């Protein structure tokens, strides 16, 4: 295979190291479950996991023992409830003699601003938020700052520069030029902020496909270290235009994750005992996959013009 195309196993083995700060971004859309499962499977340890909405994937990774710390802004199973495995590492009654998970908490705007500062190589990002709340007390990295141009005070957050950012996307070419449509979240900011970037895609396309529609390119291959082709790699989250969120799994995860033994049994069955995403998709079955296929709603096309 040409360019930066790699297997998930190799990409994670080479680019994710014990002790790293890892960001798997994608806001409800394009969540990198396949990559997260590979990190669990390879038994990475002592990671600091950053993500606006930890979602089920970080609940599973934290249950898999890969993390010592979590940086986040909203900790829930969207539309369903809480993240039970993570709560067991935070609430003292459940932690008991175990090791609690260290947490560093922001608001959504604060997390986005952190990635933006990181991507733009700035020492901080100012924002009009956090006034009169308890968040700066809970997290002393959120600090008030006086404007150099007026007597206004706003709040600042520090840059977030992950060692590695992993994102999932609809398509990329072999050099990692990546196109996304649908919700964009903060993937661009998180990728530019990182030392290393892994892009996981539903489809590998020719460079010509990318060049035919350059406005849709969110991440240039310039900052990408590996391209992994992994159809259905975002399941049970969704990929705009390709498959819907598998809400049944989001609902099923709640009772599973409430019980530590059931959680570990699930990880054995769906992560450790499978050798990768293709096996996971096989195990899900074609019927389940087919049921997630949306109807069609293509965009109109635009004419970029031919200038010579």
């Amino acid at each position: 295979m040409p360019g930066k195309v790699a297997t998930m196993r190799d990409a994670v083995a080479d680019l994710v190291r014990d002790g790293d700060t890892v960001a798997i971004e994608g806001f409800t859309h394009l969540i990198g479950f396949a990559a997260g499962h590979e990190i669990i499977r390879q038994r990475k340890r002592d990671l600091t996991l950053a993500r606006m909405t930890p979602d089920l994937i970080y609940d599973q990774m934290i249950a898999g023992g890969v993390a010592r710390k979590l940086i986040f802004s909203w900790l829930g199973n969207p539309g369903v409830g809480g993240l039970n495995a993570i709560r067991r590492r935070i609430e003292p009654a459940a932690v008991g003699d175990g090791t609690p998970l260290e947490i560093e908490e922001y608001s959504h705007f604060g997390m986005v601003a952190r990635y933006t500062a990181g991507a733009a190589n700035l020492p901080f990002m100012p924002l009009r938020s956090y006034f009169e709340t308890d968040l700066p007390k809970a997290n002393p990295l959120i600090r008030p700052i006086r404007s150099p141009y007026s007597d206004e005070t706003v709040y600042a957050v520090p840059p977030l520069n992950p060692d590695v950012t992993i994102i999932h996307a609809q398509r990329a070419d072999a050099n990692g030029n990546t196109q996304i449509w649908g919700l964009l979240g903060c993937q661009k900011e998180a990728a530019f902020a990182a030392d290393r970037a892994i892009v996981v895609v539903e489809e590998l396309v020719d460079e010509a496909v990318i060049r035919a529609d350059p406005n849709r390119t969110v991440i240039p291959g310039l900052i990408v270290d590996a391209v992994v082709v992994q159809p259905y790699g975002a399941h049970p989250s969704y990929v705009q235009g390709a498959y819907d969120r598998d809400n049944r799994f989001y609902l099923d995860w709640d009772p599973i994750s409430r019980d530590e033994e059931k959680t570990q049994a699930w990880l054995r069955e769906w992560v450790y005992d499978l050798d990768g995403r293709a096996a996971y998709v096989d195990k899900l079955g074609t019927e389940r996959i087919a049921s997630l296929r949306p109807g069609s709603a293509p965009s109109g096309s635009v004419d970029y013009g031919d200038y010579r």
Partner: protein
Amino acid sequence: MSEPFSKSEMMIVAAARELAGQHVCFVGVGLPNIAVNLAKRTVAPDLELVYEAGVFGARPARLPLSIGDPTIVTGATAVVSMFELFAFYLQRGLIDVGFLGAAQIDRFGNLNSTVIGDYAAPKTRLPGSGGACEIAINARNVFVIMRQSTRSFVERIDFRTSPGNLGGAEQAEAIRRAGGWNGRGPSVVVTDLGIWHFDEAGEMRLDFLHPGATLDEVRATIAWEPRISPSLATTPAPTAVELRLVREELDPEGVYTK
């Protein structure tokens, strides 16, 4: 004689009606999601739905399962990055109404969605702010939708995630002006029992009691002695049209309305 309806249905319908006359609304997860989508189909057809996931002018064809559902993208006016959404739309001051829920609220409309108990050693770890903190500060008006109980309508919240009228209207107004907030604070709290607005002191005042609810119930589900409007009225019951939209179009499986 109107059809029978559940408390949740009344709450959703009352919240939707409060959106009459509003233009740009930031939609939250859960109950706000269905209330806003009902308003769009009834009292506020021109309402622009903004989702924090990065959508302006959403036209969801089904009730979104989460605030990031793909149905909010298809047919929308614009999809933007979350930085743009929070910086250019919210912080710039373009949002008229932000809808919030919470685990705890106090008499001045300050909200907690972070922890029950001590932050460092919580009894219950809740989801946290998400966008709630900056929505409370920068949406021009904040609508709150919550079920009443003494566990949630408390004398003192355990953590202030989203500022309301702080310790009272006068103090809150001065702080908002000095800090350059776009927001004017909470304007309504819709519960399963009634509709609360905020009086001159910045404290919640019950203006409408839902049909079937009693003042005894209201007092039994709130941890402070509540202010009751001298001209307390009964919320008009949900109409057949509103109930049909909720039951058949917006929440056919009864996820939010049971």
